[in-house]
């Protein structure tokens, strides 16, 4: 099966983040700083990463999230493993 496009991956990440942190989907945009927009700390961001791993059926080491704070970069990291 071909890998989904980056836009599709990004869209799914935004949907999952909105669902998990109970934020209206329309409030999230790809370049948002997710710490700020979702009002979360780094441990909650790791929680989100776990959800994304389950969804995309991949495994990302914690360090992949180091220095990442916007959805677009996160999507790129995930896309690279799909």
């Amino acid at each position, binding site marked *: 099966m071909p890998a989904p496009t980056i836009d599709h991956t990004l869209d799914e990440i935004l949907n999952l983040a909105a669902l998990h942190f109970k934020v209206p989907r329309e409030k999230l945009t790809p370049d948002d*700083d997710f*710490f700020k927009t979702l009002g979360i*700390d*780094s*441990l*909650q961001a*790791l*929680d989100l*990463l*776990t959800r994304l791993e389950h969804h995309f059926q991949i495994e990302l*080491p*914690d*360090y992949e999230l*180091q*220095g990442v*704070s*916007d959805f677009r970069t996160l999507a790129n990291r995930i896309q690279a493993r799909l």
Partner: protein
Amino acid sequence: MLDLRQYASLGAALKDAMERWPNETCLIEADRDREKVRLTYSDFKEMAQPLCRALEDADFKAGDRSAIIMTNQSKWLISAYAILFCGGVLVPLDYKLTALEHLQLLAHSKARFLVVEYYLWRAITQLPEFAQLGVEIVLVTEAPAGADLRGAYRWEEFKRKGDPKFVVRQREDTACIVYSSGTGGRPKGCVLTHDSYLEQCASLTAWYPFCPGVRYLSILPTNHAIDFMVGFVGPFVCGACVVHLRTLRPEFVRDAFVRYRISYVSLVPMVLRNLERGLRAKFDELQPPKRWALNRLIGLNKLMTRSRPRVALSRRLLPQVHKAFGGELRALIVGGAFTDPSTLQFFYDLGIPVACGYGLTEACTAVTLNDLKPFRADTVGKPLPGTEVRVLNPDGEGVGEVAVRSRALMSHYLDDPELTAQTIIDGWLLTGDQGRFDGDGHLLLCGRKKNMIVTAGGKNVYPEDIELVFDGLAVKEFCVFAANFLWPQKTLGEEMLVLVLRLEQGQQIDDRLREEIESRNRRLADFKRVARYLLWEKDFPRTATLKIKRGELAAQIAKTATRAQMVEI
């Protein structure tokens, strides 16, 4: 535990631990739910010896500085043991710093050797500044097959056969150089002797003794003063076991408590809050009758543990809660930053003893700790044995600067006699923290005198260090302050950095400038980011050499501006 009085160095004590408890498990390393390594003290020694021999062959000399940049794992401790066995000076660096910051601290520490995890090494080698790296021998862990290591050796292959020769060190010799912060402007490398560590370890284990069978969960970075002591030196000299978890994912941390029947864990407030959030969410899901019953049992537990913890009783009263923590948890050790008393009380009411303490890298690890006799959520405890704490120049409420004297204090800041002289006066370390003692001898912290913040993750951030990232910002001038330094509060918590902006004449803050600030802010590690900006309408006061007079500017801002004028970034 070993009688630490008989040892001259950390290396000597750790070496004896290997002989004393050969068959006890000393180290477990797990990645998520997969156990990767399980070592007895005898296995640990067998793994460390070939590395010690290889270091000998590499002309490793007593006093050679050796940095480690790694996430928590068995190779961290094996490398540290080997370095101390060979008489080296350990320089543990925070793996969460950027590659450029790693290079700056490697240069400042003049490290001759470096042990580093592959992904961190890859980032370091990609910088143009890599060409100036002065480290002679680099050992890289877990490098993929075929990776170009840019002159480094593979840790796994850096070994020789034979018995290494233990290198004797004295109590007054340097054991570690630990950076308390200050990567950009003025690195603060705390020089700590073997005496500092051995004294501190003896004090801590007098109150919280470890022994064979005790399992300590190591999730704070081992480079942090707390985990180095409580997650390495302490357990090892007592024959206890350290459990390393290679991930900080909350679900796996929770799982590790149960899987490894953890006895102790050290946490920073952020992790404690996360655990609290998880428990509260579970409680909220309970049906009303069950919730009512739980509340009654918590109430009963509170009553029964008012004067002291009674863990066995609490485990019977609230078995489900204690099972979630593995059923053998003896205490949570909390420090590194301000912790909300309500969070501490929440855990204590569930029958989980929480030992909240206060310390700083300059004092090796801890200065005060709660002895739980009785539990107090509002204080950071009493001075540890062998530690004197004074409040200098107290005001009418008894609040003044906290000063500390003990054998555990650092000897000096590396290559910074001026800062050392400002920080240690007549043997007393001036902490820059404001506090007071209550009638029971407990220390209460009431704010900070220094221009810095400590994050909920236990990180010290100095404004001067992060200004570099805003260099060239299209404004007339700017300066970063800790908000609580500008507007002192008689409490800790809600600490944040504020970017003070002086715009050009006629300039307005517009979307473009805001975006520029946000974009630069994002280049910083998340815990270092500036939270607010403040517009300032006067030129900054400067010295003859054009340095900003920070103290004077802070006083002007405090006098004419208010917290409410800060704008969220």
